[in-house]
């Protein structure tokens, strides 16, 4: 499914090597020409900056005074252990991941499952409307939801009032802040929902019919047929959600008013700490170190996820024995 497995499969069967005719060589030259923008971009904006970023981790580098840059060995790396804000940032991001990742996995499946119900009329219109919040600019999303979550005048507070429940100030109470971010994130499920729905619609009806003949109920069918067959999409969505969670910046940045209103550091996500270090305090050597830490965490988790895939992700065409 999608990017990852396709690319992996093809890399393992590279058939375009070997001695070639003149025509093939000429064609290859055209090919290089066409992909050259990416090759250039890859080196200019990715590979070289990454290597440079690694070198920065050994420097005391302040962009305001570049002439004072000096080599400080592993000082930035050893600072990681004694940085209390880094510990906070890892805690905040880690706790949020534990709550947000299950939501990011389950929500698209639930929405797609609803839209895939056979008896549903106006499926296309529903799909479009359920997708629509995904295209609302994040800045609008944030301000709409902060209004909705206002403990006095917001609509959530008004609904709770009908049941005589007091609305907590979820944008300012540290324990509630992750929940506020989850609510804001509910509007970000569109793409995952659409891919899940497409995968569900690709499941052959004969499988369902066979299961029904064998006496399986709807629950059994959902968990024994639908979920395994859409597991490649679940896997893909999980990888993207995981990466996305470590990239979170805009929402906590704006909700904390640029880091100024930050009760118990509840808004101190990894990237907020990174931004403040690099751009507010201009300590770019240490900021590069933080970026590399993030990179190593994300890569490790991604590799773990790929390793886990062979236990739960259905591989089309692979032997079942």
């Amino acid at each position, binding site marked *: 499914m999608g990017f990852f497995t396709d690319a992996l499969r093809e890399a393992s069967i590279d058939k*375009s090597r070997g001695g070639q005719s003149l025509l093939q060589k000429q064609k290859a030259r055209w090919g290089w020409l066409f992909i050259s923008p990416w090759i250039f971009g890859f080196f200019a904006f990715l590979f070289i900056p990454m290597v440079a970023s690694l070198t920065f981790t050994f420097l005391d580098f302040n962009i305001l005074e570049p002439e004072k840059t000096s080599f400080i060995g592993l000082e930035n790396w050893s600072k990681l252990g004694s940085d209390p804000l880094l510990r906070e940032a890892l805690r905040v991001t880690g706790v949020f991941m534990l709550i947000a990742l299950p939501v990011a996995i389950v929500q698209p499946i639930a929405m797609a499952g609803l839209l895939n119900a056979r008896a549903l009329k106006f499926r296309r219109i529903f799909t479009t409307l359920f997708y629509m919040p995904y295209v609302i600019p994040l800045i609008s999303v944030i301000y709409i939801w902060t209004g909705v979550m206002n403990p006095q005048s917001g609509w959530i507070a008004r609904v709770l009032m009908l049941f005589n429940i007091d609305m907590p100030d979820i944008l300012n109470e540290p324990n509630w802040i992750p929940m506020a971010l989850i609510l804001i994130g509910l509007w970000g499920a569109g793409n995952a929902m659409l891919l899940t729905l497409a995968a569900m619609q690709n499941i052959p009806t004969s499988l369902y019919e066979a299961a029904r003949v064998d006496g399986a109920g709807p629950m059994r069918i959902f968990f024994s047929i639908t979920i395994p067959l859409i597991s490649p999409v679940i896997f893909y969505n999980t990888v993207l959600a995981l990466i996305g969670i470590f*990239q979170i910046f805009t929402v906590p940045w704006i909700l904390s008013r640029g880091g100024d209103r930050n009760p118990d550091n509840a808004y101190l996500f990894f990237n907020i700490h990174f931004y403040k270090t690099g751009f507010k305090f201009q300590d770019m050597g240490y900021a590069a170190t933080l970026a590399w830490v993030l990179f190593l965490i994300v890569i490790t988790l991604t590799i773990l996820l790929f390793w886990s895939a062979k236990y739960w992700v259905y591989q089309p065409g692979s032997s079942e024995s």
Partner: protein
Amino acid sequence: MTSKSSNLIQTAAAGSKNTSPFLVSNLKSFTGGAILFLITFSILMAYLSPMGYMAVTSLKTLDQIPNTRILPQTEELFEYEGELYPVMNVPTEDGFRSLVLVQKGRQRSQFIDPQNPEGGLIEWEGRWRTLEPNWETDLATENYSEAWRLVNFPRLLFNTITIAVLGVIGTVVSCTLVAYGFSRFPIPGKNILFLILIATIVLPGQVTLIPKYALFERIGWTGTWLPLIVPHFFANAYNVFLLRQFFLTIPKDLDEAAMIDGANPLQVLLRVIIPQAWPALIAVMLFHFFFAWNDYFEPLIYLLGREDLVPISVGIQQFNFIYGKQVHLIQATALMALVIPVLLFFVAQKYFIQGVKFTGVDK
């Protein structure tokens, strides 16, 4: 989908052949469908309700926001002997009447009839606090002109659209070339290169950010739009993947025929591939347009101190940090920022949704 539903009809028909339960089962599936529709509709309404909050709040005056009404409404007042008194909805023997509360009392209060103010006082027994005031709808449409002016919306719009359109051109041109290269040419080690391209998706942007920023600072690009535009002229994994998938579905016979007619690969791209790839190209353009409209972090760091150059995302955030208490204006700006993307989505949703599906579907 069609095959699925026709299957359904067949099984339903087979099950009810020549038997009277036909009607019953039909009725059953009808109510089932209606209930499902209602459930889905309610969930949709709840899911989209924050948009309703935004629309309604953006039309309120600041005084209306704390009151208990959902719609922008104010308590109706009536002028009587030079003073303003509230109009209440009073239960009387002849049903509810709108009366003006002129004298409040604990057990009984004095009212006058607004239709006939000279008719003298009307006494009403009961607690006036239990009465509901007469609400009248009062839309503060001036919020929009005020927000428009305060955020300098035309400027923000111009900045956002310029950055987005230039980036769209860069993305669609570069991604088309690269996807064409990957889908049609025998480049040695092509599949390894493609794997590297795809792997860049999982790379967190922060790890390259500091040196890129230092570079752009050194060559004088910070404080300009260049860092937000130029890198998009060098292709990105997501859109290259989408286009390559699409190009692979175009039969090779066509480009081979054109080649035999003497066209070079660039001509094949322009005359054979692109005319057939419009749906995918439109999807790529839309994706980048939405990305640029949404982008907040990069404009924040690269346009620091250049308020005249910032796009909508940063402009509205800056406005909010200053006017945070003006809830009605904030909601008006939120609506102004989403109108164009949402309209564009509805106009082009076919291409958009097809494009999203294409990134996920196996060949």
